[in-house]
């Protein structure tokens, strides 16, 4: 398994190139796909415009289910970007893995815990920031930590950390395990020559199909939970 990492330091900050490169690739794929889909938009939609509008309707639907009303509409862009980025990231490593010197430079960016933690961090930072912005610091504190019962304060504080960790680790665990199993099947296929190569092909295909499913579900779960956390902070319980 390619557990290597190519770490380089710029200005004393360590960057894991083998983690950053696939993220950049996923972002580029997302951007150019969306750019392509949104060309020549018309009042009467046709072809690819239908597709991008379907995605937008889908992500807006996720928002509506947790935060109905006008307030939720400003999260449309965040959820849309988050969903498309995570979705593409999840599928990337399942289709394409490039390794050089035992270091994989192209894989799922979400199979690295740093990536998912960053995304979860962005989400929760947004949620807390919006909570403070809406209710003021006092109202935010009361709403978030003393809300059902004041003596549950320690649990509420702990909950914020577990929210963050579960959001990040759920995505990371699912995608990472998927990739590990893909690689295991690949190694198995190589191990006994033709005798194991042939049964490995359908196995790999089946697991890839399942990974597509898992990747889609996890992208959906991530953005749904994002909306749940945001709505918890900006709505009075």
């Amino acid at each position, binding site marked *: 398994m390619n557990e290597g990492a190519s770490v380089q*330091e710029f*200005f004393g900050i360590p960057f894991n190139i083998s983690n*950053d490169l696939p993220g950049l690739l996923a972002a580029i794929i*997302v951007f150019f796909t*969306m750019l392509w889909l949104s060309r020549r938009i018309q009042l009467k939609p046709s072809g690819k415009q239908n597709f991008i509008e379907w995605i937008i309707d889908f992500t807006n639907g996720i928002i509506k289910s947790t935060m109905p009303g006008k307030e939720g509409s400003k999260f*449309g862009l965040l959820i849309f970007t988050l969903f498309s980025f995570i979705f593409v990231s999840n599928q990337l490593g399942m289709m394409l893995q490039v390794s050089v010197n035992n270091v994989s430079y192209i894989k799922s*960016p979400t199979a690295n815990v*740093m990536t998912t*933690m960053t995304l979860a961090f962005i989400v929760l930072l947004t949620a807390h920031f919006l909570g403070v912005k809406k209710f003021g610091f006092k109202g935010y504190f009361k709403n978030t930590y003393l809300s059902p019962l004041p003596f549950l304060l320690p649990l509420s504080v702990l909950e914020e950390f577990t929210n963050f960790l579960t959001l990040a680790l759920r995505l990371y665990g699912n995608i990472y395990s998927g990739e590990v199993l893909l690689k295991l099947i690949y190694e198995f296929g190589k191990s006994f020559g033709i005798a194991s190569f042939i049964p490995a092909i359908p196995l790999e295909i089946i697991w890839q199909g399942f990974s597509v499913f898992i990747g889609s579900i996890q992208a959906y779960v991530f953005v749904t939970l994002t909306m749940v956390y945001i709505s918890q902070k900006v709505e009075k319980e």
Partner: protein
Amino acid sequence: MGLTFVLGAASGVQWGDMIFYAVLFIVLMALIKHFAWGPVTEMMDKRATKIANDIDSAEESRKKAEEVEQQRLAALKDSHAEASQIVERARKNGEQQKNTIVTGAHSEAQALKETAKQDIERERQDALEGVKNDVAELSLEIASKVISKNLQMNDQKALIDSYIEGLGKQNEVK
């Protein structure tokens, strides 16, 4: 710039990745907003308002059409009544005109008859007068011829003069 190449996860947390992904995500969001999300959602909003407007205007035009239909029906009903009224009036007018014409003709005929009668009467009168004169003259001539044989100029001079005078007067009148 000190470049170090470290293998394995033992090198600690690469917290640069966090910065990288945060920046990447925010840049991606900005780009998508500018190039894809903005125009598409704007178009979707535009469509939503257009559809709402279309529904409203359709409702309005439907109402208007109904109103016009109602007006048309009312006008049709009115026109029926009006038509029968016109026919009635025309008939009345015709009747009246006929009466006037007939009466006029009657009176004209009467007047004509009257004038004709008068004319005839006058003609007759004239003729009578003429005949009377002629008779008088003739009788006078006859009388004068008969009388002249034994008429003495002297004896009957006054009578004859008066007679002649009377004739002259009569002739003058004529």
